[in-house]
């Protein structure tokens, strides 16, 4: 299985981080970075990671199902994650989630027909003091209002990249 040179370089770094006989440590980092490139954790990827880390496919499979970020089904190009855990819940996180579902017509862990957007109701993403919070792929949005969420979803649906939706600011990247 071939990956981009960037990912290959990253894999090499991962494998060098751990003691020589502990390559298994690289399984989770490899999967979580690789799935962004392969769009999902395929059987082929599982076999490849197993081979490179010197473990069995089953040992990789055991991990895939355990971690909620690892997904065997492709996500949308922009994976919109809305937190509804307590701090966000108190200040409108659940409403944002409802709004997103209604607006996109898709639900939890579903993808839009054009594959641009997928939704996920997520557990606490560590933005409690700046709630309600949303993550698009790995970017955080804080103090998200219903209006901003609308603009964000509209922009993404219209083919824009998050950074091109200038009136909704990402806080980190």
């Amino acid at each position, binding site marked *: 299985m071939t990956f981009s040179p960037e990912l290959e370089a990253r894999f090499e770094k991962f494998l060098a981080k751990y003691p020589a006989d502990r390559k298994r440590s690289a399984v989770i980092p490899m999967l979580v970075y690789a799935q962004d490139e392969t769009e999902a954790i395929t*059987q082929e990827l599982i076999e490849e990671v197993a081979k490179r880390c010197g473990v*069995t*496919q*089953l*040992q990789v*499979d*055991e991990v*895939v*199902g*355990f*971690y*909620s970020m690892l997904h065997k089904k492709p996500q949308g190009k922009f994976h919109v994650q809305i937190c509804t855990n307590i701090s966000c819940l108190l200040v409108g996180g659940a409403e944002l989630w409802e709004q997103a579902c209604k607006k996109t017509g898709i639900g939890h862990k579903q993808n839009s027909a054009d594959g641009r957007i997928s939704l996920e109701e997520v557990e606490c993403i560590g933005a409690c003091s700046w709630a309600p919070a949303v993550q698009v792929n790995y970017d955080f949005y804080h103090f998200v209002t219903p209006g901003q969420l609308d603009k964000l979803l509209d922009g993404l649906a219209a083919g824009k990249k998050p950074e091109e939706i200038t009136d909704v600011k990402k806080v980190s990247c």
Partner: protein
Amino acid sequence: MADLVKFTINGQELEAPAGMLLIEAAKQNGIEIPSFCYYEGYSLQAACRMCLVEVERMPKMQVACTLPVSAGMVVRTETDQVNAARKSTLEFLLTNHPLDCPVCDKGGECELQDMVFRYGAGESRYTETKIHVDEQQWSPVVFYDAPRCILCFRCVRACDEGMGVSALGVINRGAMSLIAPNKGDHLECDECGQCIDICPVGALTSGAYRYQTRPWEMEHVGTICTHCSDGCKTTLGVRNDEIVRGNNRDRSGVNGEFLCIKGRYGFDFSEHADRLQSPMIRVNGKLEEVSWSKALETISKKFAEVKAKGGKFGVIGSNQTTNEENYYLQKFARQGLGTNNIDHHRTGDVVTLVDALSGTTGRLAKSVDFYEGKAVLVIGADLAVEHPFLAFQIRANFRHHEAHVYAVTAETVREDLVATRSVRAIRGEELSALEGLREALAAEKDLVIVFGDSIKGDKVRSLVEYGQSLGIPVSYCALVDYSNSRGAIDMGLVPELNPGFHASNVAGATIDELLAANDLAALWVIGSNPLEKAKVAASKAFVVVQDLFLTETAQRADVVLPSASAYEKNGTVTNGCGEVQRLKRASATMGTKTDLEIIGLIAKEMGLAALMGPWLPETVYAEIRKNVKGYDIPLPLVTIGAQQTAPVNGRVGVDSRPDLIRSSHDNLFTSGTLGRYSTVLNSVIEGRQSR
């Protein structure tokens, strides 16, 4: 042994070795602390929380399966708090567990059922929906019904730690966690079924047995597996004279926790539709069914005629018939027919080993030595494939005692996983690799050396010389193929040896010579199939065959007699380590007779009944005790457990005929003729070929 410490459970002062786990210490003293995930010999989980008990000076209840006992520890296992916790854990377990015990295959022998009966609540408070996952079939013999699974992880450990196969894992998280097979939707493993045996509930069930009967409708007959020479105890579940199940019911055999696919499912040849059920005689070139009396009369007449004319007899015995049958057969051949032309398919060079060890005692390895020895050297054998129980013992020895394992083999073997040193050597050239191990081996406290059929004749002597030169106690095991291969040698089913490794001074032809002899007048084959790959040169030879099936050899026969399988007879067999064990009759196939009875009947028909004595296994065994050195072991002792025979203690003084020693190298899914008629073994092979 650790020092004993005094501690208290429920006000009773008890003693146990310091550091022993509380759950074991309690059990040793007759106090049950319930658990699902704790399983002696496998790694600790502390997952099921059934074994929570109160321990004084500890803030909350403690799990007894991970807590070592210490001096002065005060434990309470039957308080309100403990009982409430057990009840609640069971209540939690039952939330997603189907409550359909009447139709569950495990009903009646389910640990969860028993546990709820003892510790559980009479009614359920759970009114929410249950999580459902469809049942999956992972292999011909393994089914997984996830909702019944309580996630005790016993199966995962049995497969990983016990078998070294690691074919089972856990996928998903939380309440959605499932046990999963190594190939996504199916298993690729030894198909040993230990995951099924160890499953406390009906989550893992056997494709060969499920939904055929209720456990209480069966009679459970403990006998010895008739396939390889490891001599595992298998318990056959019998209903209406039919074997419905094989399993490792009470773990009381030499095999302890272990049983492989053959011991568990390979009984099915005995129930095969192609079993011979009537004697047959060749009439006008074709075999026709006849009565037993007609068949016996035909044989005895012909035998008497050949004997009277001084014609050449040939007798070929079996690797799977009992010691009694083998003894009886050679006695009849030698004393009744007056021939020493008796042989069997030889599979390992026990004879040279016994000879090379003459003048020593206690140098033949016992099954338990593979588990208790400080070091094990495997030469020229893929134990995990051909002798899976011995391989299991070695893994357990490594796991529990950090035994040092050395492997000198042509290919990679499973022992490599636990080996201190693995050396690859061409088959037959293994001994040349041993010098490189000398230093390491000489530093061991003791050593078990086990070798396959590439080490025979002088190589066995060289190996023993090498072993004795290490300066440490070494014991040996010459691997042989089948359940009574060792017994066949011990009972003298070779022309060179009378029973008990006594050299025979009478000339006798070997199996190859018999088949090649143009002047052979009568050939009598019992439970063997020499014509699978050979022919009888003497076209006019009168051939009598006793077998379960119409084998290639039986097809050449003039008279075919349907014999009973090992599971249909009483008697004793001797495993590869020389341990005598008792077969117990489980079932019967209509029309068949045991080989012992058949021999007796032929003898009687020939007027030799007085010479032969009654064909009762116990009577013949008594004679063996008297006449076969090393076998003077009272039957009650054999009944309660394997007893190692101690063969000769002096030179054997014959050529072991290494040229005739050829192991069949049956693997986990083949077993000579019997394997051909085992539906389960064949279904595994077919399943793999179709993938």
